[in-house]
């Protein structure tokens, strides 16, 4: 009995998240008036506690191997929880708007339930749990995307998102059914022993990668990304671009590495191609964008390509640098979206790049944060983005993907061009006639705190060697 209890308690990341979810749900239910600050403070405090409680990594197999917790997955879960906390902090301005104030509680509850789905996906030891977690992460996400009920773009984006995510999970599921037909088991632990490298297994692998490619918006499967990112409320876009993408990337890495070792030659070539095409096309399309949210969509597509490099490396170092990349990407991207969201809420809903013209004259601090985050995304040395790119390139290079790394390096130069276009707009361009920012923006305390934390992360995480040394150590301890 005692043993059983301790086994269940090692689900602590999920259990504590469920507690947070239920408490927030009840608090929302019995809230006296919408629009107050209380709920956001409560949910942020609870998430902070959740992050701090789950910092202790442990290894455990539960339910006959259906659920596997490793130090690596628990540190990834902590990164995702912390990222969600940042998204919640910066969502204050949007949730305070009169038409969304009434749905504030729903926003938190639905977001937390997608996070719970990602946790189960990451810890899955069986494809059934994996699939349930994946769907638990993507069905509520469609509700989040369509959250601005009265805005036409949001509704469109919701429809596009749910249909493409259903399509991708149907592909993935078909792949899984073929895998089941050829092997007779869906346990991650049993599959490597019985999996052969036949044609059906290859088809299953390709369908699986296609399904995950949709979730991560890799290039042939990226068509939904720009529309959904533009149409969704900005806070939701931030969540979608970092948390959802990061979880999918780590899950893909875990599955291809541990379930398909018999097909390593096949998936590594497929992923190498996908990575190069994704980085290049994402970059080229990003140059053409004028709307900041579409621009960030293509930027995040190309970042997904870099993330795939970590999967490609297929080594413990690759896994660790992938998690590190996701962590850095979370802080930098959330900072950018927080600034976009602030400008949007105070500038009459504008998200085009011209809205940022001359922002420096009136809002130097906001501009500085945005600049640092963009430098980090582009990979300019003193900032964290440089280190994360360096590790991921090094891991892929060691695995022998020299040409791929070279092409990715060339692409970072292109990406610098378009990130610096935004910086140029903010510092050099003169504001357009009738610009909304004659005076400095007074952003709310939550946004300021979020931006401060993100800036700290961007500046410090790269030079803080204990963080990534631990990551590398935990990635070595992965089972199987």
């Amino acid at each position: 009995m005692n043993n059983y209890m301790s086994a269940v308690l090692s689900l602590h990341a999920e259990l504590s998240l469920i507690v947070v979810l239920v408490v927030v749900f009840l608090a929302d239910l019995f809230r006296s008036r919408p629009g107050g600050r209380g709920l956001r403070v409560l949910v942020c405090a609870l998430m902070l506690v959740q992050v701090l409680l789950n910092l202790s990594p442990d290894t455990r197999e539960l339910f006959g191997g259906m659920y596997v917790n490793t130090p690596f997955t628990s540190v990834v879960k902590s990164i995702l929880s912390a990222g969600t906390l940042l998204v919640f902090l910066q969502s204050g301005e949007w949730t305070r708007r009169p038409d969304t104030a009434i749905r504030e509680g729903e926003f938190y509850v639905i977001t937390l339930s997608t996070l719970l789905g990602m946790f189960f996906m990451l810890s899955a030891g069986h494809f059934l749990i994996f699939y349930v977690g994946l769907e638990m992460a993507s069905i509520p996400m469609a509700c989040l995307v369509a959250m601005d009920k009265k805005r036409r773009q949001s509704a469109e984006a919701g429809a596009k998102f749910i249909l493409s995510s259903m399509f991708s999970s149907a592909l993935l599921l078909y792949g899984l059914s073929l895998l089941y037909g050829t092997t007779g088991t869906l346990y991650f632990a049993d599959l490597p022993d019985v999996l052969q490298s036949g044609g059906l297994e290859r088809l299953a692998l390709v369908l699986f990668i296609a399904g995950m490619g949709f979730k991560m918006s890799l290039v042939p499967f990226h068509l939904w990304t720009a529309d959904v990112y533009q149409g969704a409320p900005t806070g939701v876009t931030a969540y979608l671009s970092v948390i959802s993408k990061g979880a999918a990337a780590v899950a893909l890495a875990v599955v291809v590495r541990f379930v398909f070792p018999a097909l390593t030659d096949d998936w590594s070539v497929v992923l190498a191609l996908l990575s190069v095409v994704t980085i290049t096309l994402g970059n080229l399309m990003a140059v053409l964008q004028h709307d900041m949210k579409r621009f960030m969509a293509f930027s995040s597509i190309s970042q997904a390509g870099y993330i795939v490099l970590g999967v490609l490396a297929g080594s413990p170092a690759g896994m660790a640098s992938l998690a590190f990349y996701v962590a850095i990407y979370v802080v930098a991207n959330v900072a950018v979206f927080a600034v976009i969201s602030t400008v949007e809420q105070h500038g009459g809903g504008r998200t085009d790049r011209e809205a940022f013209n001359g922002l420096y004259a009136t809002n130097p601090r906001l501009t500085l944060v945005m600049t640092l985050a963009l430098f980090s995304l582009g990979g300019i040395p003193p900032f964290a983005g440089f280190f994360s790119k360096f590790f991921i390139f090094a891991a892929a290079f060691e695995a022998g993907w020299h040409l791929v790394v070279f092409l990715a390096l060339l692409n970072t130069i292109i990406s610098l061009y378009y990130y610096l276009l935004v910086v140029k707009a903010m510092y050099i361009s003169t504001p357009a006639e009738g610009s909304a920012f004659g005076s400095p923006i007074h952003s709310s305390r939550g946004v300021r705190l979020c931006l401060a934390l993100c800036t700290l992360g961007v500046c410090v995480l790269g030079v803080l060697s204990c963080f990534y040394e631990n990551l590398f150590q935990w990635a070595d301890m992965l089972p199987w």
Partner: protein
Amino acid sequence: MEIHVISYLILSTVMMFAGIYGFFTRRNLLAILISVELMLNATNINFAVFNRYLFPGVLEGHFFTLFGIAISAAETAVAIAIMINVYRNVRNIQTDDINEMKG
């Protein structure tokens, strides 16, 4: 008379690719949803058939089918709710009219 396993697999493959074809060619959101449902049901057939014919001793595939049905029902509910919202905003659910965002 026992139906051969190949017949089931042909059925599920045809359903799958009919669904994919419909997904890319239909211009009505509901028709696209129906196409996706075809694809999901093709996978359910696959799981059930593989379990019944190839691995009769265990129930893994049947369970997967049950979960698949439940999850696709949840997806359909959300999809239809979103389509109703699209209709309220656009007064139409043809994809040609859902093209406000371009880039």
